[in-house]
């Protein structure tokens, strides 16, 4: 009987050792781990350049791809506990709470001259902490409007330059839309976290007071909400039930004249005859003034707990450069960040209905300086406004009451100053 137990114990030990070793990494002089979103685009692009990078530099790269929610959670817990599992991280302004855990990239940027040739203003749009830049930009997008260029031309309408013009044109647009049996404007009202886009793109007031508290500027907010109330009348009747995919499908199916959307979510499908009936008929509008279109900007950060910051920088610089900018756009449709890509003759002639406007919108777009809690609350209140439960005044009062209790992360304040979103 005893012998049996020895065997069992021995087997268990062997098993344990195997399990323990199961996740063990080989120690290589310089090994780094890059965390990013599993999307079949950014991660595939990283895999693509990995082999060449490793061969050239001798640095071993591990790519850790997570679904969006898990990526955010894992990055943050890693930083807060100082674990240093990920040397290079992907994220965006929602990481504001943990900015102090990233290293300053200023020295690297100075030495390498990184940032030359980026879309104008993009270095400032990257996150900063204590006056130092900590993020490098990739995969940008700006909330915008796709419209039916063919129908606009036929109706002899030109795309409006300001929101005032836009509002004046709305009835005419409706005439065209009605004549073609489509809705004037479609928007994913069923995805409430998207609701703030309609506010951001018309609002040029402040979000943070001189005293460093979250607040909406009253008169400007009410004006924006007024315009939105008018705009809502021109939306597809069921827009409050549409998800992002649904709204996109409407536009692709010729059921809407204008769609308010993230262009990067839809342009690939819009140009694919198998998925779209609007190939060659659409264009991206330049975002009317005033306002700051909502920016979506992935950034690469380097963790303070990385043992190989130099190798990490090398990887970051290899991932974001002019050559890959073109390549990743061609292969995966990842939004470029370099001016040169937007001026690339091949793309300019091929995407004349999209590229110039996108470059323009991107230079105007910024991240709102809102913490996750502040933004979520704002979105939910705007949702109630969309359903007609609140007046313009009511929205401003409700938001300002709650925002007074939410702390502004220091890093957010800094960035808000850089992008002019603090009370003057």
């Amino acid at each position, binding site marked *: *009987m005893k012998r049996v137990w020895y065997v069992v114990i021995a087997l268990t030990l062997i098993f344990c050792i195997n399990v323990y070793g199961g*996740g063990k990494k080989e120690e290589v002089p310089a090994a780094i781990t890059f*965390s990013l979103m*599993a999307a079949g685009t950014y991660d595939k692009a990283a*895999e693509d350049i990995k082999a060449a990078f490793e061969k050239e530099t001798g640095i071993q790269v591990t790519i850790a791809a*997570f679904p969006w929610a*898990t990526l955010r959670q*894992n990055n943050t817990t890693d930083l807060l506990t100082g*674990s240093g*599992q990920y040397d290079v991280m992907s994220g965006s302004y929602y990481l504001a709470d943990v900015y102090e855990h990233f290293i300053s990239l200023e020295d690297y940027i100075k030495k390498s001259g990184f940032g030359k040739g980026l879309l104008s203003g993009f270095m400032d749009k990257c996150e900063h902490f204590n006056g130092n830049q900590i993020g490098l930009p990739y995969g940008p997008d700006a909330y915008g409007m796709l419209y039916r260029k063919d129908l606009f031309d036929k109706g002899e309408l030109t795309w409006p330059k300001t929101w005032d013009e836009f509002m004046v044109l709305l009835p005419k647009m409706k005439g065209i839309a009605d004549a073609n049996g489509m809705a004037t404007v479609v928007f994913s009202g069923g995805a409430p976290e998207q609701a703030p886009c309609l506010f951001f793109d018309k609002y040029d007031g402040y979000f943070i007071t001189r005293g460093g508290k979250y607040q909406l500027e009253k008169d400007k907010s009410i004006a924006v909400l007024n315009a939105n109330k008018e705009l809502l009348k021109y939306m597809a009747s069921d827009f409050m039930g549409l998800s992002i995919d649904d709204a996109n499908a409407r536009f692709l199916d010729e059921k809407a004249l204008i769609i308010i959307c993230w262009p990067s979510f839809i342009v690939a499908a819009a140009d694919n005859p198998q998925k779209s009936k609007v190939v060659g008929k659409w264009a991206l509008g330049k975002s009317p003034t005033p306002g700051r279109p909502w920016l979506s900007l992935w950034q690469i950060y380097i963790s303070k707990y990385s043992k190989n910051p130099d190798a990490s920088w090398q990887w970051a610089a290899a991932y974001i450069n002019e050559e890959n900018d073109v390549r990743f756009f061609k292969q995966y449709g990842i939004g470029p960040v370099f001016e040169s890509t937007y001026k690339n003759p091949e793309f300019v002639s091929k995407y004349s209905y999209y590229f110039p406007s996108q470059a323009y919108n991107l230079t105007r777009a910024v991240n709102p300086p809102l913490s996750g809690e502040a933004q979520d609350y704002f979105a939910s209140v705007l949702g109630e406004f969309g359903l007609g439960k609140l007046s313009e005044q009511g929205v401003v009062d409700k938001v300002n009451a709650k925002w007074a209790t939410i702390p502004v992360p220091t890093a957010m304040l800094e960035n808000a100053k850089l992008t002019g979103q603090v009370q003057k």
Partner: protein
Amino acid sequence: MLKVRISYFNLLRFLIVFFAVLTVLVPFCYLFLNSIKLERDFRTIPPKLIPSEITFEYYREAFSKSGKISNYLMNSVLVTSAVVLISVFIGSLAAYSLSRFRKVYRFFSLIVYVILLVRFYPKVVMIIPYFILMKNLMLLDRLLAVIIAHVSIGMPFVVWLMIGFFDEIPKELEESGMIDGCGPWKRFIKIILPVTLPGIATAAIMTAILSWNEFLIASSVVSVNAKTLPILISGYISDKGINWGPMSAVSSVVILPMFLFALFTQKYLVRGLTFGAVKG
């Protein structure tokens, strides 16, 4: 003359059972259909229900070298079997000991209830402290971190379940062993275990299901190497939509073993699911 009599009761029974079975099966069939459907069938308006062409591309992709599903499958198998072995072994020893002790000292009943507390605690809050713990033990991204987490959820359950079984063992059986001069170890192995084998089986099944399916805690302590299958599934959701095809294929792979498991072990499920409160 053969007389076929269909009573109203049997008609009603047929309708209800048929409808229930349909409600359960349709979603599964839909999942499987989607896993063998071409990309373009998802996009047409309205989308095609029945695939225009059958493809096993997503499965091939998943099992290919770049898909890495075999690594995750291996991880899942290792984690699940380790969790089952450890929780059942340690858990039933503890349950035996508690079952004996608490007949004499009331204090041990308290321990039993404290162990039960684990079931009433939202696991979300554990994530951060547990992560810190695993970091200090240098176990991040190791299978062992996942195993410990699952054992700590699964074992209390085993203890609770097995106490019920041990309590049912007649005193005489144990005493006969004592008289033969067997120590506690020998008695446990030779006399007690054989009688409670159904209990052990139940405990093993329940911990296996738990460990195979667990996502939240596993996903927070692994990054690259120690991923288990459920984590892989959620990887197909991105900010730009969902890759239905590959996601359905991987989901089918994750579901299948549990199906087979359920088929062969259903008679043990009841008692397990109710923490031993109902004897199936």
